[in-house]
């Protein structure tokens, strides 16, 4: 047992559901107790999804414990098949169902006899992998299933497109700024005159997967999701892939050069150097911004970075290489990917931290006292407590990290966004310090003098105590309203009764 207050990555089934619900016409059925369908709330809340999340639970209850859930699961699968007519149903085990040790694979085979849809059992172990690993695996599982199926009936498309083309692997719902990133990547490939063959899994149809092979190569923008799929496609169909995250000026250039090398090997004869130079110096603002005197002031400032592997590694590099900021330490909660991460960031920071214990990260931040933090929502809250500004650069995130406006982290527009994020975090910090040095704004006192009506209304002790229980941000309003009410009915003492009466009578 482990005492835990908070976790960076969710349980495995969340990863599977993120993949399943990203595809079009794929329905996931969770084998889970009542209340485990919280995923639907997250989709509906965070992504503000307009459509019903294609995830239902086959509820495990007492009866199921006594009798086994075969009938129920099989019935639920064929019911969804009739109701929604999906292409694929994915039976998703949860931590609870995995300890029941029922033969879910058998239910799946049973159900698929009667269904129009294909039926798969998600192959993830709840006690060994987390959300990110599970999503990587589930995507690979689905792709493998459909590619092998296509191989069997000889429907794999073997001809490549005339012009260079690419599959983007890793567009997933509930990913950090994922939708914006994908748009930015589309733009980037258009600029490079590379056709987009398919984007998976978001909005993709499983029926089209057999055409994945007509692309010249695969592109995996994020370290966490998609690599297993790219590796499978390379092994089985000889498709090369690029997995350099185009985040930051230097990395984006590196990524484009690597694509160039790959295409030239396939005899496309492209030269992107001029494009890179033009974008870097004149289109994107962030390279110039790094040179401007504003950014000079950031030189040597101390920061720390924490997040998933992709974002933490890229941001560390940007801070160090592109902005001259001193990264005291950088870390990731993707413990399973330690080796890669260390290799990526070693030369850009003093120390590398691999941990998924937010308590430890909090303590480290307190000890380091950086001028700014770049982390997840958790680090933002740690920063709040310690009065250190924080820019959020990675999941886990809140609803405010699903902005409506265009906010990619990848590509050239992404570099602008990141520059703003970094700069704003630091300026706020500086402003805070200046205020402190000069004793703060002196307006608070001046403001409160004129506002409070200084008349003879008294509060009984009880009522005053009650008032302190009201949350701070509305307390002032309640106090003023109550006093106004008391004054209106010429009462001089505010008792509990008066307080409640006021609440009833004053429509807010």
């Amino acid at each position, binding site marked *: *047992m*482990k*005492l*835990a*207050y*908070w*976790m960076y990555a*969710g*349980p495995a*089934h*969340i990863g599977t559901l993120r993949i399943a619900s990203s595809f079009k016409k794929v329905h996931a059925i969770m084998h889970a*107790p*009542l*209340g*485990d*369908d*919280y995923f*639907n*709330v*997250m989709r*509906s*809340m965070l992504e*503000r*999804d*307009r*459509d*019903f*999340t294609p995830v*239902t*639970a*086959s*509820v*495990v*209850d*007492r009866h199921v*414990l006594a009798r086994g859930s075969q009938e129920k699961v099989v019935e*639920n699968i064929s019911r969804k098949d009739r*109701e929604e007519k999906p292409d694929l149903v994915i039976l998703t085990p*949860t*931590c*609870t169902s995995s*300890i*029941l040790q029922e033969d879910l694979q058998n239910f799946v085979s049973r159900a698929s006899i009667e269904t129009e849809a294909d039926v798969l059992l998600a192959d993830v172990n*709840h*006690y*060994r992998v*987390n959300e990110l690993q599970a999503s990587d695996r589930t995507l690979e599982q689905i792709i493998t299933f459909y590619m092998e199926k296509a191989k069997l009936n000889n429907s794999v498309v073997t001809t490549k497109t005339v012009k260079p083309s690419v599959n983007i692997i890793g567009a997933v719902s509930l990913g950090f700024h994922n939708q914006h990133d994908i748009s930015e990547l589309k733009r980037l490939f258009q600029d490079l005159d590379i056709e987009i063959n398919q984007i998976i899994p978001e909005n993709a149809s499983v029926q089209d997967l057999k055409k994945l092979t007509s692309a010249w190569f695969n592109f995996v923008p994020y370290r966490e999701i998609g690599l297993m799929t790219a590796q499978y496609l390379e092994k089985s169909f000889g498709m090369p892939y690029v997995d350099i995250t185009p985040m930051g000026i230097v990395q984006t250039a590196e990524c484009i050069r690597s694509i160039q090398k790959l295409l030239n090997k396939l005899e496309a004869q492209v030269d992107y150097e001029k494009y890179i130079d033009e974008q870097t110096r004149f289109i994107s603002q962030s390279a110039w911004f790094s040179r401007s005197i504003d950014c000079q002031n950031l030189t040597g400032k101390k920061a720390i970075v924490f997040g998933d592997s992709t974002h933490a590694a890229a941001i560390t590099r940007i801070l160090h290489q592109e902005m001259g900021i001193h990264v005291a330490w950088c870390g990731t909660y993707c413990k399973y990917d330690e080796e890669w991460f260390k290799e990526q960031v070693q030369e850009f920071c003093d120390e590398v931290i691999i941990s998924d214990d937010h308590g430890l990260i909090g303590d480290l931040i307190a000890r380091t006292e950086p001028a700014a933090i770049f982390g997840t929502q*958790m680090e933002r809250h740690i920063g*709040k407590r310690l009065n250190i500004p924080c820019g959020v650069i990675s999941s886990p995130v*809140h609803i405010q990290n699903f902005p409506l406006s265009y906010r990619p982290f990848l590509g050239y527009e992404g570099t602008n966004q990141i520059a703003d994020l970094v700069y704003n975090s630091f300026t706020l910090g500086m402003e805070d310090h200046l205020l402190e040095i000069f004793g703060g704004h002196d307006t608070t006192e001046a403001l409160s003098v004129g506002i409070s009506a200084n008349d003879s209304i008294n509060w009984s002790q009880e009522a005053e105590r*009650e008032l302190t*229980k*009201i949350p701070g941000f509305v307390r002032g309003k309640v106090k003023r309203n109550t006093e106004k009410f008391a004054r209106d009915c010429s009462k001089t003492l505010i008792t*509990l*009764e008066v307080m*409640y009466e006021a*609440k*009833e009578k004053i*429509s*807010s």
Partner: protein
Amino acid sequence: MSIVQSDALTFECETGNYHTFCPISCVSWLYQKIEDSFFLVIGTKTCGYFLQNAMGVMIFAEPRYAMAELEEGDISAKLNDYGELLRLCVQIKKDRNPSVIFWIGTCTTEIIKMDLEGIAPKLEAEIRVPIVVARANGLDYAFTQGEDTVLAAMAQRCPSNLHSYSSSNDTSKSHIPLVLFGSLPDPVVTQLTMELQKQGVSVSGWLPSKRYTELPVIQEGYYVSGVNPFLSRTATTLMRRRKTKLIGAPFPIGPDGTRAWIEKICSVLSITPVGLEDREREVWDSLEDYIALIRGKSVFFMGDNLLEVSLARFLTRCGMTVYEIGIPYMDKRYQAAELALLKATCEQMNVMMPTIVEKPDNYNQVDRIRDLKPDLVITGMAHANPLEARGINTKWSVEFTFAQIHGFTNARDILELVTRPLRRNLSLSELGWDVYSKQS
């Protein structure tokens, strides 16, 4: 679908494929209510993930709750449960020094049959902190029923000796002591206590109290009354194990419910209530601006928190027509008075009796919502945005469990919630786009 006037409430039961919160969510309000407590949820990452996401910002305020996250070794019984729990609880005692530790059992502890009730007394003796065990799991319960399991466990811990009696200034005590049960925010506790005081009813204590160390004395023969509709286990425990007498009344939600609740308590205690009628009328009058917005409109409860019957009864009295009352679980005995009031209210308002659907099936419900096109659907967050995108007004049901809705004072708050989507969408509908989904 034609509307048939029926003269009795109809009860149905569907498949139980519905969305609700896991009952462990009760720790989020109970740890705030019981100030000296610590809640330890013994479960997996799934439980932790739910709590951390459902509770949003609260999680960062150093809450007095944590997960005892089970690992593979715990599941396969490689590790010793007693030893593991001892280690964690010693640490909790050292870090937080609580007056009580609640162990919340989950689906996993049920399935692997971890003997929490057996381990607790031994461990309690060893670390000298009371340990209360509640099995608030998703195999057996829905959402607010989590509180019920905790309060039922606490009911056994209420002192029964007369020790703490002397301090209470109960010189005016003219009736058998009355203890109320149900966790409410402190201001609402004060309000309801005062309403009863006005009638000469003194409340001897509340289960739960603000602090575990202040749990009320409960003796054989005491009266008890529930303030929430989901507390049937607690009621049963108080009757059977603590030999108290339950005052079965409608719940003090809405001015009608509050009045009926007070009247029932008074009648059992042989007190004639004074001025209640005027009090109720005054409240109704003050609500008129909100009622005007919903009068004659229809509402559909998908069902997820067991407050549905009381809210439906109040909204019927406000002039709404209730198409369907979805509810996770219906205890017809514990809710008897509330159901009777619902029936009477429908007759009085001359509207059709709603169907009460236990263990609803959300898919079928969405189908019925498409047919009925209710003016308002009260539902969980999983369905709210998709319904709004299809032009249907929704109110997120969970807000009713976190808002102050009890007593005369807070009737307005209920209507504030109910009318909010109507008030908001009124202004939007003038803009001319009501459907936001390409699927529908």
